[in-house]
């Protein structure tokens, strides 16, 4: 398995170079280094000298992909793309265009992102599985049909609607929790309740429908029939026999997202004033801060690849028939 993991890590290198290249091309198609300088330096009193010194200090005075002013390998090496990409692969994110240490900012913002994303993920997983099992228990009943209609309705509504309605009802009208904000520690629990609730509710429709279909595929299998034949109660059949066997496809979809939880939620963090990595990325895009954008895209790609590797590993743990080679 170690050989497999090493191979997967090596495969990741060209993928990350590709992602980085695409980020470069897309970003610099829209923003020239001069535009970035202007965005950072403000609209007033911006002179060519000021722009030139800003670019020189941050290395944006280099050509993007090919440097004609030098000879040999430096023609490729002494370019913005290579210089910036090399540091990324060493996980040196450097300074943002507004001269803040990106690594320090990422470290500080990871906790608020996780404070929302992790509980949302766990509670949603638990809720969705429980509800799906319940629907399987009452399959074909009015309850099952009604819940399926509700699930489709929940899926059809935009996530923003839940945020606005949640803030209106729970914060503005009923005064249960603060409408936005964040604090670390136990004092901060009241701030994360609403975003977590909204995250769980918004994902319940698709989650329940998906898990229900997985469980329904299993319910007619021989081992279930055997369990029933042994005289086990339906609840015991569901939890002791159906659930462990239904977990494998669920894991496929779930493990892959675990590393990405660190990246936070772009919309949720913005609406609830959570100082996480999601809002960090949005702010950087708005401020045309390329240093942060490329760091976050790179980090997101790395975490996604880690998620895929973890998924593969989890197969071997849950299904003895699968082995990695």
């Amino acid at each position, binding site marked *: 398995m170690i050989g497999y993991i090493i191979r997967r890590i090596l495969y990741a290198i060209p993928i990350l170079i590709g992602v980085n290249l695409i980020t470069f091309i897309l970003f610099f198609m829209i923003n020239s280094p001069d535009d970035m300088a202007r965005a950072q330096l403000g609209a007033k009193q911006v002179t060519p*000298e000021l722009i030139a010194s800003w670019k020189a200090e941050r290395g944006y005075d280099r050509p993007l992909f090919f440097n004609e002013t030098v000879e040999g390998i430096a023609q490729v090496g002494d370019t913005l793309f290579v210089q910036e990409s090399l540091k990324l692969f060493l996980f040196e994110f450097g300074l943002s265009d507004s001269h803040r240490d990106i690594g320090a900012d990422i470290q500080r913002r990871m906790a608020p992102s996780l404070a929302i994303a992790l509980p949302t993920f766990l509670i949603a997983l638990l809720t969705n599985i429980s509800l799906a099992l319940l629907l399987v228990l009452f399959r074909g009943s009015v309850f099952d049909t009604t819940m399926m209609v509700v699930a489709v309705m929940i899926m059809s509504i935009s996530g923003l609607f839940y945020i606005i309605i949640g803030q209106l009802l729970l914060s503005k009208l009923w005064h249960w929790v603060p409408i936005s904000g964040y604090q670390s520690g136990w004092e901060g629990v009241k701030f994360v309740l609403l975003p977590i609730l909204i995250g769980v509710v918004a994902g319940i429709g698709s989650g329940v429908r998906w898990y229900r279909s997985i469980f329904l595929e299993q319910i007619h299998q021989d081992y279930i029939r055997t369990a029933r034949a042994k005289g086990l109660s339906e609840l015991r059949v569901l939890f002791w026999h159906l659930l462990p066997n239904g977990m494998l496809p669920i894991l496929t979809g779930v493990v892959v997202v675990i590393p990405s939880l660190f990246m936070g939620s772009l919309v949720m963090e913005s609406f609830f004033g959570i100082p996480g990595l999601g809002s960090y990325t949005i702010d950087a895009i708005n401020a045309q801060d390329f240093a942060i954008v490329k760091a976050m895209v790179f980090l997101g790609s790395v975490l996604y690849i880690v998620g895929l590797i973890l998924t593969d590993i989890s197969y071997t743990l849950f299904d003895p028939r699968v082995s990695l080679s």
Partner: protein
Amino acid sequence: MGIVIRLLLPLLVLLPLFVEATPWNSPYPKGETADNTLFSAFSSPPKHLDPLLSYSSNEWAILSQIYEPPLQYHYLKRPYTLEPLTLTEMPRITYLDAHGKQVDANSSAVAFSEYHLELRSDIYYQNHPAFVKDTTGQLRYGHLSVEALEGIESVEDFAQMATRRLVAEDYAYAIKRMAVRQNHSPILDSMQAYIVGLERFSEAITQIAHAKRALGEVLDLRGYAIEGVKVEDERHLSVRIKGRYPQFLYWLSMNFFAPIPWEADCFYQQAGLIAKNLTLDSWPVGTGAYYLVTHNPSQTLRLRANPNFHSAYYPTLTPQEAEQMGIPTTMLTDGGKRLPFIQEVVYTLEKERIPLWSKFLQGYYDASAVSAESFNQAVSISASGRMGLSASMRQQGITLKSAIEPSIFYLAFNMADPVVGGYTPQARKLRQAISIAQDQEEYISIFMNERGIPAQGPLPAGIFGHLAGKEGTNPIVYRWEGGRRVRRTLEEAKRLLAEAGYPEGISAKSGKPLTLYYDTTSTGADGRALMDWRRKQFAKLGIVLVIRTSDYNRFQEKVRQGTTQLFSWGWNADYPDPENFLFLLYGGNATIDTNGTGINSSNYKNPQFDRLFEQMKRMPNSPKRLAIIRQMLDIVRADAPWVWGVHPKSLTLTHRWYHNLLPHAMANNTLKYRRIDASLRVTKQTEWNPPVLLPLLLLLLVVLLGLRWLYRSYEKREQSTLQGDH
């Protein structure tokens, strides 16, 4: 049902125990709102808190509470008036000829003006680790190792703090820092044109800074001097300016000229601190009424009253003066009292307007601006067009304060364009016709919720040269009838258009409809509505308007290159002087002639206007200056390089516990004058935010009943299965 009631009853009994005196939805730690703390918000993280770099109003709102430039604006006096802040008196100005000999202020031989500044002797910096010295007199935290920085995440984490007195060298040091090109001062290039020796010094110090940085050494600027900036002693400083530049006094009230202690500059150049984001750009060191204790730009900024703050008192005005200046008498009650009143200020990041507005209504923010979304809820417009508070706001005890901002948003013609530009009578008439057809009153009503007034020229109210009433009316676009301005009719516009060679919008030469191009960044639903309106304004004259949408970067590029025809733009005043608006139309600042750096983006060039501008900009306010400004206004109104758009109106809502908030378009260091009644705030917050528990109980009831029904159904099924099995 019995089991449900059995489960619910204890909950009903226990619930009141959870209902505390502090509202559940309070976004602040328990008891904090009872303190003498002001709660405010910021919509985007400040990019810079270095006074050298910062050039945006949201950053100045914080920085100006911390740093003290030599001058400030009087809080109550109108029109805006400068007064000493850290000086004993207003700067004394002497005039010199080319040989450095003192001459009369009105002499034609004036080659230099020298500003003499005398500092107060009782001003001390906030406590800061940069000032701590060891027993040998060396800076204790001047050479911090990685080990020494363990556990240090903020300036407040240092074990020792100290202060020192403000000296004249600190102001000179700030100007020297400005000269270092690597520091990216936005005003360096402008100031080089005025401060004697700054350009030469900048070139030299930039080289030195480059070498020092390459070696990883700290650059201490004390050993270097600018020819025109002289530190006479600890309390006296002089700055020599090329020629006359009366506006320099306004610059002396801006944060660019705030003092920088050399200790702080050297302290923050240490690599270990930079790696922890502890820099002068994030942790200011000032002498102001407040100092920064929390700097988390993604969440909270917290200011605390500076214990070393010098004596400063709330300004006084006589009731007669107040009436004359339009200042409410409620603003006078704290006259003569020691400042500041508020002990702490908490700024919370609120990117979205809905949470910001809701928190204001819940009493968790002490003041709020009126956004487009909240306008209808907050403001009512009477039949006569008067703006006032809505009934619900009045009921909550909220007050509304409005002020015309020293800004202008206009529709610019590119004067270099062959169709809309030029100075022929026909070209002028085309622009005049378009100016009449643009119904600014309708625009303000539809798109600004009446939060603005139609501009009559480039100068907004409050700026010297702005005239109200008939005298201030733009005769090209308006007529003065029955004591009010009336927009000229469409027929008049059409007549002008015909005289311009486009009868009914058809070119007399080609016989084709006149088609104009408008560059914009507006997108989305709001943008589309605005562009539809814009098209209609031109269609009234038969002109076809083609909208060219691009992103902001491309739009700016087009304006810089002069490839636009029509576009909308705006300007916010730096200081309350007409020069700061009229230079937007000065030919020497034309964008296409200055490689895109000039501020005159419409590329307007009228030699007569330029001559008058040169004359006016060096003059102090006087009837003679006013006469020149009026001539200039007449010229630009006739030439019509802009459709004189709108001067926006700012609206601020405050709760009844918030006192002394007076909109001031120029001053930023006004927090020290504000006062709050924290006990009233707590009372109202509790009154307005009781948790509504009925929905919670109903929800619990539904869940419990649902579970019970499911359990029964399951039991029934199991039993029927068993029976079936038998």
